[in-house]
């Protein structure tokens, strides 16, 4: 297909590199350097999509990020929804189609909706669909189907996304004349500069206008500047890199869409800059008149861009509609580019006479004091209707391009994200940055100063200033002369459509919001700009109000008859432009999503049937270690029997360990534990309970005195971090005068626990150099020794109620020890056990777990551990709350055992235990099951429960409520095996 709208020469495209692509099923050709939008214009494609609500045909409106219409779905290898055609470079094999159009953009069946538009104004759904009662969902499901833009891909592309942290002295956002000039000023001083620009080519407006600098074409200056910047080792320049977010303390995110490494799909830079220079330019806005959304209506600056930068003609016969001086420059520029401009319609009465003269010299008829009131044509504009002068005489002018210039909105989005409050400037009838609240400065068009001269001057000055503030002496940047550009002199007209017009004048193209919608919202009392936006959805579409938000404020001000400045603007939120989920998420995929901490035994478990699960503290350890063809419960039962009858082995490495040392250690332990620590001899350990200050249970564990001065505390694996934080906090904030150091040493040790009647023998067989007989080495003793030839610490502690020994060796020896014990234990049929089994065994023994039986507001007495509360101590953490809460009366949730009457019924964790009152059918909950098991050692099910006033119910019957029905159980003491502890002490 030929490119009938491509000029024979000109533009920055590479005509030697033709590129073939598909759009809406048809093949087209463009050139390297084209965007999809420019290539479509060159090929004369007018309709590129359909609008969100009314499915109106839409064409390309702009040439940049502010595009509101040209969203496409990429297909094939690039499957991706909602890409902007105006920023998408074409490449060979590109396949794109319009979104929101069935079967295609040229003929869309849903466009019938357009004929019903009067029935569905803003917020119509709030007023209807209420019948039948609560059946909105039925309507909603149907509406959802026609809503939305693109389609989510069905499978991942699998690209590599990178995050890169970066520090610099000066971050310059935008590589237009102001940004380049700033980068030059800062770069020459030696400061570390990062210059980012969203476009594929630096230069900003220099690329789409015939400007001069020092009487030479501005493009020469551009080339020289880029050459100089690229030679500076202290300057990094990124293209197609958009600053998307501006956060606290000069932290910005920059999305680089086409990084230097081809295997990186996208890279998100996280930049911490000492100074930020915002040179983000300004966005032209459109004007409101009937059918202002027809294909062929385009921003005047965009029309220039398509002519000059891409060598295309966005139309053959143009009308320019403006309310400010920049329209003149663009009208003349279009003529020079080969577009016949028949008329320039200016809303103002008395435009600058020189400009009018220049326009007339170019053969353009200037019609002053006139407005376009409506556009003609459906799939392409064919003419405009204008109203001229006070008497509002009508006139029609034919055209196939309507270039609109409604004034300029400084791109203050990043400034607003930085926390700044924009202020309204009457000079340009738009919002400009107010005071800086971070180390930031806006220069050039985004500061509200639209001329090239001031962009260059402000940029250079800001670059010098920023580098000086970072401690670099600024090098000079020569003052440059540019041709005179007149002040814009904007006429703030916000709606040119005639009152009562049957056709819509769109203010937000993304969400199909019209000026009539805004008026309706205001009439219905939604008067604050936020309410108007929310009620009509204006400014809430994909472009995030880039094109519409100032016009919305202007129109509201006009309707309410107030100053736009008093209406206020909305706060812009990140992201400036949409960012792919992949780029946001970055590289942490697969197993890297959360760290996986390992013990030396982790691989052994993976190789031997261990069923790993979260332990807490990012460890994974086995719930059980299944043999071939064994179910989970079979494995747990087998392991449970082995520990009680023979020998089990358990990896205790994840338990938290803290070395506590210092002259005030005993005082410290006394304050953090509920029991008394005054007289612990060296080589002995003691069980303790720690409380939160609010009286709840925090954690339990054994602390050993391992030398005159050192204590070793253990914590539950999942609580290790919480406990350490708790202790550090007490020490540093509340008791800074206590001389105690805490050193976490969890990772130093691998800890293996052997448990069961044969555990003493297995240690003998593996080789141990100390006497561990019951007399010489008692329950809660600890010693240094050698086990299996490895230097070790051995301790007698238990989590199962069986005779058990915990052996700790340096991490590097962990697996050696494990293997040695497994080998020595073969004759006792040593059984590796998992944490589910450990839970079963502790339940049999009635050992409580702070996180289960201590759930909710249960305290240390409720869980039957009142004996651990020292009566002698005046204070310990939690004591005061404990007293207060118990004194305030009421029945307590107390821990009891349950023996289900159906010995095969295992009470599920969390099942409510209920009572039925005499006169009520509704059961009332008196507590819940905290854990239940089938005990292989007892040959029946057991459970622990937390019951209101539970201790007084011993011997009574409990009713357990499950969604399968109701079961009963006897309430008993919470211990089922070895109540006197003979086994563990033996």
């Amino acid at each position, binding site marked *: 297909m030929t490119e009938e709208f491509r000029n024979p020469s000109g533009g920055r495209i590479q005509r030697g590199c033709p590129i073939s692509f598909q759009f809406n099923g048809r093949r087209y050709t463009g050139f390297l350097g084209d965007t999809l939008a420019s290539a479509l214009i060159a090929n004369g494609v007018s309709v590129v999509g359909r609008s969100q609500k009314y499915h109106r045909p839409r064409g390309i409106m702009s040439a940049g990020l502010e595009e509101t219409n040209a969203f496409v779905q990429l297909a094939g290898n690039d499957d991706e929804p909602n890409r902007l055609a105006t920023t998408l470079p074409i490449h060979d094999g590109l396949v794109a189609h319009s979104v929101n159009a069935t079967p295609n953009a040229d003929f869309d069946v849903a466009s019938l909706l357009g004929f019903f538009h009067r029935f569905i104004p803003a917020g119509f759904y709030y007023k209807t669909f209420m019948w039948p009662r609560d059946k909105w969902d039925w309507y909603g499901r149907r509406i959802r189907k026609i809503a939305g833009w693109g389609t989510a891909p069905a499978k991942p592309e699998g690209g590599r996304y990178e995050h890169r942290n*970066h520090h610099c002295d000066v971050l310059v956002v935008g590589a237009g004349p102001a940004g380049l000039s700033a980068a030059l000023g800062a770069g020459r001083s030696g400061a570390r500069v990062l210059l980012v620009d969203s476009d594929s080519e630096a230069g900003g407006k220099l690329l789409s206008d015939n400007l001069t600098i020092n009487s030479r074409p501005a493009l020469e200056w551009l080339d020289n500047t880029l050459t100089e910047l690229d030679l500076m080792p202290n300057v990094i320049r990124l293209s197609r890199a958009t600053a998307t977010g501006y956060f606290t303390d000069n932290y910005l995110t920059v999305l680089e869409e086409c990084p230097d490494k081809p295997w990186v799909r996208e890279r998100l830079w996280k930049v911490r800059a000492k100074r930020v220079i915002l040179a983000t330019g300004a966005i032209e806005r459109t004007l409101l008149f009937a059918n202002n959304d027809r294909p062929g209506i385009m921003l005047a600056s965009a029309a220039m861009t398509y002519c000059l930068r891409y060598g295309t003609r966005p139309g053959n016969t143009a009308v320019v509609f403006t309310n400010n001086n920049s329209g003149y420059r663009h009208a003349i520029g279009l003529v020079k580019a080969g577009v016949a401009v028949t008329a320039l319609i200016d809303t103002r009465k008395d435009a600058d006479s020189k400009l009018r003269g220049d326009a007339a010299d170019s053969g353009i008829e200037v019609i002053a004091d006139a407005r376009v009131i409506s556009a003609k044509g459906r799939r392409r504009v064919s003419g405009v209707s204008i109203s001229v002068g006070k008497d509002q005489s009508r006139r029609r002018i034919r055209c196939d391009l309507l270039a609109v210039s409604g004034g300029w909105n400084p791109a203050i989005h990043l400034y607003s994200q930085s926390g700044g409050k924009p202020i309204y400037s009457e000079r340009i009838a738009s919002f400009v940055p107010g005071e800086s609240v971070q180390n930031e400065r806006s220069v050039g068009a985004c500061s509200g100063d639209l001329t090239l001269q001031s962009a260059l001057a402000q940029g250079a000055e800001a670059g010098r200033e920023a580098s000086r503030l970072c401690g670099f002496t600024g090098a000079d940047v020569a003052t440059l002369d540019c041709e005179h550009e007149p002040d814009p002199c904007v006429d703030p007209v916000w709606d040119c459509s005639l009152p009562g017009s049957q056709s819509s004048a769109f203010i937000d193209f993304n969400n199909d919001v019209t000026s009539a919608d805004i008026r309706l919202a205001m009439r219905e009392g939604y008067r604050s700009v936020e309410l108007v936006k929310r009620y009509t959805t204006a400014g809430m579409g994909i472009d995030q109000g880039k094109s519409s938000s100032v016009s919305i404020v202007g129109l509201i001000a006009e309707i309410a008859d107030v100053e736009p400045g008093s209406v206020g603007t909305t706060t812009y939120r990140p992201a400036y432009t949409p960012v792919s989920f992949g780029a946001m998420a970055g590289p942490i995929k697969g197993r890297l999503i959360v760290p996986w901490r390992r013990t030396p035994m982790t691989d052994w478990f993976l190789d031997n049937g261990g069923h790993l699960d979260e332990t807490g503290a990012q460890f994974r350890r086995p719930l059980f270690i299944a043999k071939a063809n064994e179910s989970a419960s079979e494995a747990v039962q087998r392991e449970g029997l082995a520990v009680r009858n023979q020998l089990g082995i358990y990896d205790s490495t994840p338990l938290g360990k803290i070395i506590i040392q210092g002259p005030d250690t005993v005082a410290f332990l006394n304050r953090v534990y509920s029991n008394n620590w005054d007289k612990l001899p060296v080589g002995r350990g003691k069980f303790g309970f720690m409380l939160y200050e609010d009286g709840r249970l925090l954690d339990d564990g054994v602390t050993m005195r391992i030398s005159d001065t050192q204590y070793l505390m253990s914590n539950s694996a999942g609580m290790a971090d919480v406990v350490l934080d708790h202790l550090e906090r007490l020490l540093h904030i509340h008791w800074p005068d206590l001389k105690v150091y805490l050193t976490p040493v969890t990772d*130093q040790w691998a800890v293996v626990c052997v448990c069961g009647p044969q555990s003493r023998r297995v240690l003998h067989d593996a080789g141990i150099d100390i006497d561990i007989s019951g007399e010489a080495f008692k329950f809660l003793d600890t010693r240094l020794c050698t086990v299996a030839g490895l230097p070790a610490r051995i301790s007698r502690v238990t989590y199962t109620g069986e005779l058990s020994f915990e052996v700790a060796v340096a*991490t590097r020896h962990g697996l050696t020890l494990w293997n040695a014990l497994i080998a020595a234990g073969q004759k006792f049929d040593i059984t590796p056990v998992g944490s589910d089994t450990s839970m079963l065994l502790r339940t049999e023994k009635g050992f409580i777990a702070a996180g289960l039986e201590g759930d909710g507001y249960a305290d240390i007495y409720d869980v039957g551990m009142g004996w651990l509360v020292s009566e002698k101590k005046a204070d310990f953490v939690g004591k005061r709350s404990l007293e207060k809460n118990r004194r305030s009366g009421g029945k307590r949730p107390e821990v009891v055992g349950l023996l289900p009457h159906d010995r095969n019924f295992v009470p599920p964790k969390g099942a409510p235990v209920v009572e039925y009152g005499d006169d009520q059918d509704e059961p009332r909950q008196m507590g819940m099951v905290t854990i239940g098991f089938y005990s292989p050692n007892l040959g029946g099910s057991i459970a622990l429960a937390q019951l209101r006033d539970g201790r007084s119910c011993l011997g009574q019957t409990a009713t357990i409520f499950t969604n399968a029905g109701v079961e009963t159980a006897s309430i008993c003491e919470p211990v089922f095996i070895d109540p006197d502890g003979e086994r563990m002490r033996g």
Partner: protein
Amino acid sequence: MSGYNAKLDAIPRKGMLDLRGDAEAVRLCGETLGCRFPEEANAKIAVSDHSALICLSDDHWIFETADGLQVEILQQLELAAADQFHSFCDVSDMYAHLVLSGPEAIEVLAQCVAIDIHPRVFGPGSTARCAFADTVAQVSCLDSSPAYEISVLSSYERYSIDWLLMAIGS
């Protein structure tokens, strides 16, 4: 061809001591080791050919030496500081050490740490304890090739290796 021009090596464990103590304890230890303890956080000094001291904060240091030597040094230090407020622990097995090197090592490291590692501010001899991926590491610049040593908690070793290999992209 994909991936950065950088490589990752695991190096053997070192002898490491975690030293905490008041000024007097530190002074006495300094005498024993024949050096002055550095006072600025993230400062590192060489104590001898094979040992170094890293300051973590005003009462916390890490002493690094060749594996095996730490036991005796710990005894000497304990003896020296016996009467002072201190806590010394052998933490040689707590840390695993990785070395990331190659022309593009900085581009790899910039993916996992957020501190400024530009050669102007983080050249050879610099060290910092900082967030590394989703854990913590002691990161040191060894030379300007560049090469970085990354010491992580032992239980995070595999995670850290996986992370770095992913970042290198090989």
